[in-house]
């Protein structure tokens, strides 16, 4: 089978993983993280490739993709914004932060912006309640309480355009 999503670098990382962990199933979650980092989404073809490479049934990998919130099949945008909606962030009015981000990016919860740059997801507590309302842009964490003006937000978002 010829691989399109399991590129050389990803295969190399999977092999590293295989050297560290005794079960081949233990390479699925790490591999999905690598696929997600590189391709933004885990499309069905990528699952089939991974299944072929690791010799693990497609159903097992699908089971993992659907169970864990960070993995997704959907075609998303270049940047993934995760806004926390749990209690401390709720008390710190994450709604108002969400509105600002929606307005600035043109994306909506569960919907990408038309320029393909942004996707917004509401998530449960991200262990950052001391800086509520907290949000992540890709892997970077931000303190929503520091965002007072449009410029504050723009300064953050401009790093990802």
């Amino acid at each position, binding site marked *: 089978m010829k691989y399109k999503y399991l590129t050389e670098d990803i295969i190399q990382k999977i092999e590293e993983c295989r050297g560290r962990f005794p079960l081949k199933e233990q390479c699925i979650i790490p591999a999905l993280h690598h696929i997600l980092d590189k391709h933004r989404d885990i499309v069905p073809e990528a699952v089939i490739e991974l299944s072929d490479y690791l010799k693990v049934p497609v159903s097992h990998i699908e089971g993992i993709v659907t169970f864990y919130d960070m993995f997704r099949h959907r075609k998303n945008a270049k940047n993934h914004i995760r806004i926390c909606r749990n209690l401390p962030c709720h008390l710190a009015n994450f709604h108002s932060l969400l509105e600002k981000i929606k307005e600035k990016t043109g994306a909506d919860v569960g919907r990408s912006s038309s320029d393909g740059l942004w996707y917004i997801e509401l998530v449960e507590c991200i262990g950052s309640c001391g800086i509520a309302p907290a949000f992540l842009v890709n892997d970077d*964490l931000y303190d929503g309480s520091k965002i007072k003006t449009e410029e504050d937000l723009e300064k953050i978002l401009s790093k990802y355009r």
Partner: protein
Amino acid sequence: MSIRDKIPHIPEIHVESNLNLLLRRAKENRTVDIEEYETTGGYSALRKALNKFSPEDIVVLVEESTLRGRGGAGFPTGRKWRFALMNPPPRYLVCNADESEPGTFKDRIIIERDPHLLLEGMIIAGYALGAKEGYIYIRGEYPAGYLILENAINEAKERGYLGKNILGTDFSFDIKVYRGAGAYICGEETALLESLEGKRGHPRLRPPYPAQSGLYGKPTVVNNVETLSNIPIIITYEAYFMNIGPAGFYGPKLFPVSGKVEKPGVYEATMDITLRELIEMAGGVKGGKQVKAVFAGALGIYREDELDMPMDYSPKGFGGTGTTIVLDEDDCVIDALLVVTQFFHHESCGKCTPCRVGTYEQHQILKKLKEGKATKEEVNYLKHLSQNIPANSICGLGFSAPNAVSDALKKFSEEIEAHLKGECPVCFNRGD
């Protein structure tokens, strides 16, 4: 170049301590490297453990320390280790760094700022348990913590604290980090083990307990980050550890405080601190307002008149992870419950029907209640569910999911009445 220059952005989280034990090096928003860790006394506990103590001595020290697990259940750590030691090797040590309970952000401070403290604790624990391998299961949403731990492990290996023949002894130990991918239930120890074996995170039926049959079916100790970070302190202080804090609940504890306080952050204190004192330590209620309610420890709810209870693991204490979320007089308890119940419904793994469906039903009723459209019968049904969900579930999520609802029914009946009549001053004046 520091590891911080190569990792994702982490903003400053406020941290305060007058004990300087767990947070001794973690007050600033930076990562302590091995150089600094060593020059400030780091790895001397490991050296002492290997040179002075047998594994059995260490288990006894931990038993005597009365250390309780900081992951939520408060189970005595020494007893857990003893239980695992009753089963033949190979044994495994797993550090639970999944930290996903709402309002909890204490473990990340140790991981991101003082990672060697955790590693040192794990290596000593590995020695005591006769384990060859330890795993750290870190939640997927802590990418920086993952890289920091990997880096710290490499540093420790280079200096002979990890790997083959540690510090020239015949003890060998390795630590591997494994990333989760966004599932609260994977903090539950048996779900964590499933996930660590590359499966969906469904909790296992117990018995057997992980100490009997855990990772790869072998005896396994699962401990929280903060629990393991206490181990070097116990080894350093030995009997003097019993001078830290109240009898039976010795040792430092981290308290993540959030919500309507002046200075949200992570506070280190002994467990004789009361919830009221803790809120004061965090600068008091924001804007000098009154406390309406506090969501604490496994998300029970407490009233203003209960704030003088100590934050320990006694039956009348708050226990749990030390999590404290403060609501002020302008917040509505039913509104907060709505957030909490939707969380549990979203995070239920779905294995037990009462948990999967019951959490949803609770959420739906509360939604109606908040809009002033619920009936008395529905509120009674909430009570029924609060008893039925824990009674018919197999894991701690199902056991604790309805805590907040049953506490609210018991302690905030005026608010419930007001919502039944459509008269909550908070919800109905704000118009949401």
